[in-house]
């Protein structure tokens, strides 16, 4: 299947949104455009099927660490983050890039591979990407409404390390308890997010090829 068939539809252009092809962007250097064109799925339907199964698994079993490496995006995006974005995002999902990830190269890559409109409004984002500090607190994002708790942001947090130790997780998807090495300082935000249940945001944590999830249904405690 040719790349052209997979090219996403062009999103509505705006001041902050580059159009689908990076060559149109004046900030793009020749090397950046090469980066932007490569790193997608080698075989879109099979790679996305495998990637989604991993995403579904980790979301259904909080604390489980899965591996995703089907896609590669320009730094600072890790392979697991790139793969998750490519599996879930398209022209219908406004994407919020925190300053840590709002690089021209990554914006070009996103524009070329998925055409997701970028938004500067966290409450409008369907997906948000960045390091924890750069995201500026998960409470800024959409938590859904009473009637539609699903209209919330899914936050993809780039982390330095993922291991099954540290904070204790309990709730749906966890037989007894699970552990994930998230910093203690994140605990209040994660706990108040859970307190909003059934509203709240759902998080993925990405580190190189590793990915774990923390849905709003999970209770988080100090380990």
């Amino acid at each position: 299947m040719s790349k052209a068939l997979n090219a996403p539809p062009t999103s509505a252009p705006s001041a902050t949104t580059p159009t689908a092809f990076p060559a149109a962007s004046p900030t793009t250097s020749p090397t950046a455009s090469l980066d932007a064109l490569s790193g997608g799925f080698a075989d879109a339907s099979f790679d996305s099927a495998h990637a989604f199964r991993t995403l579904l698994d980790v979301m259904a079993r909080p604390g489980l660490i899965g591996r995703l490496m089907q896609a590669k995006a320009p730094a600072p995006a890790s392979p697991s983050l790139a793969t998750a974005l490519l599996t879930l995002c398209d022209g219908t999902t406004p994407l919020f890039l925190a300053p840590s990830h709002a690089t021209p190269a990554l914006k070009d890559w996103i524009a070329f591979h998925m055409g997701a409109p970028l938004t500067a409004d966290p409450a409008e984002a369907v997906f948000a990407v960045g390091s924890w500090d750069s995201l500026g607190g998960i409470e800024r994002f959409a938590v859904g409404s009473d009637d539609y708790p699903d209209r919330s942001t899914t936050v993809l947090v780039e982390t330095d390390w993922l291991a099954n130790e540290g904070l204790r997780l309990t709730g749906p998807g966890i037989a007894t308890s699970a552990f994930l090495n998230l910093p203690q300082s994140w605990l209040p935000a994660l706990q108040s997010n859970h307190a909003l249940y059934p509203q709240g945001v759902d998080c993925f944590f990405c580190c190189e090829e590793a990915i774990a999830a923390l849905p709003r249904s999970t209770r988080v405690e100090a380990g």
Partner: protein
Amino acid sequence: MSALVREHYNFAYLDEHTKRMIRRALLKGVAIPGYQVPFASREMPMPYGWGTGGVQVSAACMVPEDRVKVIDQGADDTTNAISIRKFFERTAGVTVTERTKEATLIQTRHRIPEQPLSEDQILVYQVPIPEPLRFLEPRETETRKMHALSEYGLMHVKLYEDISQHGEIATSYAYPAEVNGRHVFDPSPIPKFDNPKLDNSPALQLFGAGREQRIYAVPPYTRVRSLDFEDYPFVAARAEHRCALCGSTHTYLDEVIIDDEGGRMFVCSDTDYCNEQQRANAEAERDAG
């Protein structure tokens, strides 16, 4: 992978854009157990009521390595089950099986297999009416508000009326249950005999309603409590008979009319489980003899 799959269909029939939309809904469903996530259900090459919702959910989470089993009221050999199995064989090139133990993805219409499920399995339910309150309150705006406020009094009144009319809770299938202490959901028209298997299951359970455009989920190890009253506790009822084929006394039985003189027999509705029991019985007999 057969050449047919490569040439004529995108993997698992649906286009990538549709699969992404369904996948996003599935993740939301898993994050909010029992909450019905709206999704843009597509027309499928089969009529509504034949499992269009289940097929879309299965297609969105299927991988080429899956071994797929499809059951219709427990049976692997009904028209509906065979059609859907063939559909995925042709469009996804996956291996199909009738053995519950071997399957990694099981699509079901109205039963949960007797064989306990494992962590490596996904159970996909075909759902006709996802809203448990729909027959009590026809307006979507009202039922949505009732879910938002956890206002499930109407459902308890319905169960109470059952008791006052019949002396027991007469609801025998699609028995409402509360998921994760929050949302009351419709487990699809499975017999209430199967309700206890929903609770704390090691397998991921996904529900797809195509015509009604809803997806919901019960993650593994999630509390699913069938609604009841202290003085009228939930009972997982079954016909008090033995299976005429395998002799089982603990499975859910179908009543089959065998002649026009009132003759009838009771047999396991789960054909794979019944076959396995019969094989085990035959082996035991041979060993004894």
